[in-house]
């Protein structure tokens, strides 16, 4: 009889909220932590290298990057009496080789990128892009051994030619006639290693050149080169410079390939054809084997200098590539 008094349960009002659920909070926390890992790793690298190398940097002060020595004196018990570390020859060698490598690599890379973007038929473009990507993935030991066995004889021959015809320029001077393991050959192999990097960045930037301007240039009767000069190069200049800087950073940090070809000596040498050079990364590899615990600290400090150097170069390249934007003058 009293069925009408059935139980109507009015459901509670649904809560509409934008507050994330618990699971989402966990998810966001985990992903954010993962995302910050690069910061943590870079910070740890800097921190530990500084911690280990601090003694050396403190005792050497600014001399660490302005003088060129690597001496430790021990007493009979093996304790360190005095030590003298200075990286200037290595730093100058690193910078010289990598700048020279960029100088060689940029024209070749830009030409390749232009060819691939505006000249090549589709199938050639596809194959070449694959080959260049593959080349970018080659390990440095492959380049190193190839450079030592195959490239070195040709490199020495080219160096002799340059020296013969241009030897009057101080840069190409080589009175001692010693051509093996010169910075020139190290730069050649570094250039070969960074060509794929600069090419692929330039290609990406050239392919973003505004199509309407390209078509406008053609419609005005421009030849392909006139179009490139008027549209593509103004558009891509900063990006190419950024790519070159990225290549510079890679070249500075390269270890094994340089170690195999370069003759590492603690002397500042600006004559690129003379077989004496320096390189921070290779120095670490050379000295590491027989280094004492104290010397290792010096190597850590050298690693720190190299790390900071590549970080600065990378930062600059990042800024340039990002600022490239879409402006074509």
């Amino acid at each position, binding site marked *: 009889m009293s069925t009408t008094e059935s139980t109507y349960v009015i459901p509670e009002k649904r809560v509409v909220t934008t507050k994330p659920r618990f699971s989402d909070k966990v998810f966001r926390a985990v992903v954010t932590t993962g995302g910050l890992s690069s910061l943590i790793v870079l910070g740890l690298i800097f921190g530990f290298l500084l911690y280990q190398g601090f003694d050396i940097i403190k005792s050497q002060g600014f001399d660490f990057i302005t003088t060129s020595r690597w001496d430790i004196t021990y007493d009979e018990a093996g304790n360190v009496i005095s030590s003298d570390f200075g990286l200037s020859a290595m730093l100058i060698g690193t910078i010289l080789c990598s700048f020279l490598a960029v100088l060689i690599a940029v024209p070749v890379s830009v030409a390749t990128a232009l*060819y691939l973007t505006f000249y090549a038929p589709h199938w050639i473009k596809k194959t070449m892009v694959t080959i260049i990507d593959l080349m970018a993935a080659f390990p440095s030991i492959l380049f190193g051994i190839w450079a030592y066995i195959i490239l070195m004889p040709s490199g020495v021959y080219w160096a002799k030619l340059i020296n013969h015809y241009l030897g009057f320029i101080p840069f190409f001077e080589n009175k001692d006639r010693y051509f093996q393991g010169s910075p020139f050959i190290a730069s050649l192999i570094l250039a070969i290693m960074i060509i794929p990097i600069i090419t692929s960045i330039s290609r990406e930037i050239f392919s973003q050149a505004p199509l309407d301007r390209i078509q406008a240039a053609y419609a005005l009767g421009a030849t*392909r080169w006139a179009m490139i000069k008027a549209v593509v190069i103004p558009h891509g200049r900063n990006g190419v410079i950024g790519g070159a800087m990225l290549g510079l950073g890679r070249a500075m940090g390269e270890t094994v390939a340089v170690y195999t070809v370069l003759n590492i000596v603690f002397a500042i040498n600006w004559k690129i054809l003379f077989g004496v050079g320096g390189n921070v990364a290779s120095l670490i590899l050379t000295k590491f084997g027989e280094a004492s615990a104290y010397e290792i600290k010096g190597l850590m400090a050298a690693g720190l200098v190299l790390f900071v150097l590549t970080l600065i170069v990378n930062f600059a390249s990042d800024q340039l590539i990002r600022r490239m934007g879409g402006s074509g003058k």
Partner: protein
Amino acid sequence: MTTNKIYESILPTRPWQASMKDRLTTGFVLVFALFIATLLVKITGLSGKLGFFVVFVIVFVTLTSGREYRRFGSASAKDALVNALVAVGTFLTLIPIGSIIFEVISKGYKGIYLGLFTSDMSLNSPNDPANVGGLGHAIIGTLILVAIALVISVPIGILTALYLTEIKGKFSQPIRFLVQAMSGVPSIVAGLFILSAILYPITKQNSAFLGSLSLAILMIPTVARTSEEVLNLIPNDLREAGVALGGTQWRTVAMIVVPAAKSGLLTAVILGVARIAGETAPILLLAGGGDRFNLDPFSGPMGSLPYFIWNSFKSGTPESIARAWTGLLVLLVVLLFLFSAARFLGNRKVGK
């Protein structure tokens, strides 16, 4: 029949395409330039491949641009000049890679035999011929090194990519830069870091695990950047659909976005492996290297392909250098395999 005729008459013509005559002329100029270059090299004191190449390029460029100049004037001549220069640049890019692949194959194939993959070097000296001993221990070592690095770096790399594409928090821009900076960290610095942070203070001995840690540092940025690109390609509709069905962000990402990007993420991982498989400097510092099988990643030096190649190369005898080339060939084949796998997966449509 009549329709065919009509079609022919309205078929589009492509006046910008090179005609048969143009192609023939270009071919003729090419042959002529080759001829002149040979002649000049023979007559004058120039010699060698380099001299020939330089003379050939100069002659070819002058001939083509001269012809263009006579036909269309200076603008066209400049265009032809740049055309030739650009082709030369591309050729210069291709020479080293061609030479590398050719030398590795022609010098490395002699050392390939069946026992190579099953035996180690513990009973050999550097003077033994190439068909004694092998690099089985090195292959196993590289597999272990890569596997541990993979386990560490893949989650971190993909989480970084998810942060950049899904959460898009306020740190996105700095993190993108830091990942870029991390990919520029020299491999020897990564090795030194693990050396100073773990090997000297804690373990005090070489082990594969430490090598893997440094490899992971080098692998994370590759995985993160490639994954970010792939996740960016996933259409936003999928994410919106997931949220519209009442899914939380966690469910949407885990059940929709990541499965949709599966093959792309796999490509990212493979490219990361290709990046570290041949890495030498940190291995020399941390994992050391042995010439016998060692399956324990936490104690003792472990051989690896890069170490095997390095060591054989440093030994300096002709036999051991031949062995180094064989090791390079094996490494190259591994890389080619990884690379074509990445290509194959990458070419499949994302979102399948």
